């Protein structure tokens, strides 16, 4: 087994079972009501794959980014518990890469925004926090 760090050298007791995405399903809201970034994310199964639909916040309200499939990540190479995800939105004028960790019930969402429209805008990075909407209390 090849590895780039000892952490990657694991003994596996399960055989390639898919990660459990159940903890991600639902609607996640930005913890910052004054964000100028992503307002909400909704996860759902589309054609058997977990997808996310993002709403950005624009000057005149929410902007629906549509749905894209997400790639799931575990907490460790020997784990089957979902601990993060990545996905990419290509808007033509820009590409946005989302890289998320789930920590203590929050999604910590890193965003890399790269512009392709010669507008002179610099690529930028931002992190935002999201909590799942629930009705338990």
């Amino acid at each position: 087994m090849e590895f780039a760090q000892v952490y990657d050298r694991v003994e596996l007791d399960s055989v390639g079972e898919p990660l459990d995405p159940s903890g991600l399903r639902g609607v996640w809201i930005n913890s910052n009501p004054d964000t100028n970034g992503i307002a909400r994310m909704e996860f759902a199964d589309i054609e058997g794959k977990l997808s996310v639909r993002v709403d950005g916040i624009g000057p005149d309200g929410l902007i629906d980014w549509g749905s894209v499939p997400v790639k799931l990540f575990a907490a460790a190479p020997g784990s089957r518990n979902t601990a993060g995800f990545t996905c990419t939105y290509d808007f033509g004028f820009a590409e946005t890469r989302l890289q998320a960790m789930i920590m203590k019930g929050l999604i910590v969402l890193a965003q890399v925004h790269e512009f392709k429209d010669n507008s002179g805008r610099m690529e930028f990075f931002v992190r935002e926090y999201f909590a799942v909407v629930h009705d338990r209390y």
Partner: protein
Amino acid sequence: MDFKLSGHLDPALTDPATRKLRTDKLIGRWLNTNPDTQGIVECVIEQEGELFKIDVFGAGPDGPIHWPTCRTKPLANLEEEAGQRAFALSATFEFEFMTAETYIRVNKGVLVIVLFASFRDGSKRSDYVNREFFYRVNRER
């Protein structure tokens, strides 16, 4: 100007001063705060013109494993909460058996590396995400 969120219209993105932010907070030799890490033991960041050169060393059984060097453009780090204006990095390290995507930032003097590892060797290992913290030492090795 096209946008998909208000942040795309942030004046700081076209402000020449943003491209001239200080890079010294990122540059240097960084060691893992956990001396027993089994992950990344060291990260060396240097500036080469408009690019940043990143050398990562993973913990190996017989000493550090030097990952393929990555060169990447800086990203304006416009985190609102702390009112920071700094650079962050997004770096991808390609191995035959794995891709390691990272984002790297400095928060209060601590370098934070978040790693998204994807295996393609059929080893049945799970793709995983991991986060580690680093402190800066003298740049001379």
